[in-house]
Each structure stands twice: as structure tokens, then as C-alpha cells.
């Protein structure tokens, strides 16, 4: 249980995790579910329990597509994607913890890849 980290995530995301009624609809609707180690409902529950460290280290942070399906469909208006984003930001804000470096980019490019993809990746994965 890490109170400081928990408070930071809650403040940064603006999400009230206590509104969750544990229906699992976020995970039922998540298009990236199969790729994730921790699923959307677990993000919410683990933040409620203050178990932030495992989330910070998890690859799941970079599997979330930020498609907001969970945000739109949550019956309790909990907005799980905003929790994932807040944890991801907390992770990449740590010194030397950028998920993406400019050096990696050339290998990922092809002729048709729109700029949008690169711009977005840098915004989401680096600080």
C-alpha cells in the first residue's frame, strides 16, 4: 500500500475509484484485454487498494489504446482509461523511464505511416 502514489494517481486522473461497483464491464468491453497483464477493472481496484507499484512496472500501461470504450460504457462513470493514463504518466515521468526513444523510431517507420502515429506515441510514452 503506497498512500502517496495512490493520492497522486487519484489527483492526476480525477477519478473517484470508490464509485466502482465491480461489474467488470470495462474489462468486458476492452479491445486490448488479451494483451494486458492487469485489466481495466484491476487498475481501478488496485488503485483503490493502493497497489500502484506493480502497475507502474507493467507493460499493460502501453497496451491500453486510450479508446475510451471503458469510459463511455462504465455504468458508474468511473473512467478507468483515465486511471491507466495517470499511472502511465507517473511511470514515464520518472527519470530515464521514457517508453520510447527517438533512436527507436526509424525501425518502426514505413512509407505510409502517418505523422500522427509518431506524434501521439511521443506524447503518450515520453516526458
Amino acid at each position, binding site marked *: 500500500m503506497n498512500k502517496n502514489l495512490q493520492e497522486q494517481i487519484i*489527483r*492526476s*486522473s*480525477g477519478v473517484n475509484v470508490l464509485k466502482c461497483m465491480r461489474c467488470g464491464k470495462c474489462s468486458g468491453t476492452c*479491445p*486490448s484485454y*488479451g*494483451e494486458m497483464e492487469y485489466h481495466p477493472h484491476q487498475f481501478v481496484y488496485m488503485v483503490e487498494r493502493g497497489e500502484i507499484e506493480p502497475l507502474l512496472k507493467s507493460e499493460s500501461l*502501453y*497496451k491500453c*489504446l*486510450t*479508446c*475510451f*470504450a471503458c*469510459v*463511455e460504457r462504465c455504468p458508474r462513470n468511473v473512467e478507468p*482509461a*483515465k486511471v491507466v*493514463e*495517470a499511472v502511465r*504518466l507517473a511511470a514515464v515521468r520518472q527519470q530515464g523511464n521514457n517508453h520510447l526513444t527517438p533512436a527507436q523510431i526509424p525501425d*518502426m517507420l*514505413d512509407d*505510409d*505511416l*502517418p*505523422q*500522427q*502515429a*509518431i*506524434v*501521439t*506515441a511521443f*506524447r*503518450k510514452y515520453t516526458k
Partner: protein
Amino acid sequence: METFTYYPGCTLRTKAKDLDTYARSSAEALGISLVEPADWQCCGGAYTTAKDEIATKLSAVRTLNAAKESGTALVTVCSACHNVIKQTNYDISNNDDMAMKVNNYLKLSEPYSGETTVYHYLELLRDVVGFDKLKEKVVNPFKGKKIAAYYGCLLLRPSKALAMDDPENPTIMEDFIKAIGGTPVIYAQRNECCGGYITMEDKAQAAKRSGAVMDSAKDQGADMVITACPLCLYNLRKNSGSDLPVYYFTELLAEALGLKEANNE
């Protein structure tokens, strides 16, 4: 002729020129003048919802403020730009703390507090031109063509901020398809994410998601898919493994209005 501030965004200048040029020529034909602001900046591609992020929101506010200063509404075409700009505008209007911080940074001549109206090009067609009016101007209707609209995730969500259409049961693209003479195909995956954001890192996941979208559209009998997003177009064409053609909606618009050949000359 009604004038609007037009924000193309980074991708429309390079890889998605089609989306841009057809949008411009069609607007002109429909009696709408799109004026690009000087020195616009990239919107950043993704909106950071975190409450403690301010810097990443500034470029979108500059664009919004440029429209405010010119006294016109702002029009975007790219789904991602639209999403970022509308979410920014919504938060500036509804979150005083954020509005204050943003304005403290920007030091504009007059603080910006969400005054600008933002239209997606589709909303422009629906709310300003009107689909009925558009229908009258169509010269090459897509008769008998079964067209599947792909909304993706950016155009509709979060619905509170985007307020464009019903997030689960949208009709704006279908109405557009009807206006240009086509037959819309409704399929359940039209508002699911194609996985575009992950395409650089995880091709397999992008292929799985875009494949699901294209399969669902094809399964319901679509002849083609249209989108407003360059990344969706790329991902659906490149990674889905489907033979179903994917176009920008503006390309079909220009063709229906009889402008496509003129453009290509």
C-alpha cells in the same frame, strides 16, 4: 459565403493530403470558405486527460484562440485533431482550475475560456450545410454502393466532450452516406478502436483489432469503408489483412460533387 477557421493538422499536410484537398475543394463547392490560421501548431495527436498536465494542452488552446480572435468557428477534419481540440475546449470551459493555469501560461491579450465553437467537417455538413442541401448538390451519387462508416474511437468519445452524436448509436456518417447516394451499412464494430495507436509497437495487436473491424464491416456486406482518421485509414489498409477498400469520407464527398477529376488534373 460563410467563413470558418480551418485547422488541417500535421498529417493532412503530408501523408493524408487526400483528406485535406478534397475537404477544401468540396467546402468551396458547398459555399464555405475555409481559412487556415497562420503559424498553427500540431495539436499533439492525443489528449492528455490528466488533471496535472498543462503544457500538452497549450497548442490546442492557441488554435482555439486564433479562431476566437478571427471571430469564426473552428473546423477540423482529422479525427485525432478534432478529439484533442474538442476535449481541450470542453475542459477549458468546465474546469476553472485548468483554464486559469492555461491562461497564466499563455498570457493571451484576453484570457481564453472556451468561447470558440468547434465543428468536425461532418458536423459542418450536418449542421451548417445540411445533408438535404448536400444531397441536392450531388452529381455522381454512389448508387447501390454499400458503404460502411467507420467512426473508430476518436470521433465519438468521450461523448460528454465531443457531443457530436450518440456514442453507441451514431448516425452522422450514415446520414452523410445517404446524402451522397450510397447505402449505409451498420455493423457493430464501427465504434470500436482499430488499434491504430499501437501499430508502431505491436503489429500483431493492431492487425487483430483492425481485422475485427474490417471483418465485421465485410460480414455485413459492405463494399467499402470510409473514415475521417489518417491513422485508422493506414491501419485498416495496411494491417487488417482485408481486401475491403478504405477511403477518406472527403474523397467520396468530392467524387459525389463531381470534383475529383478536377482535383486530380
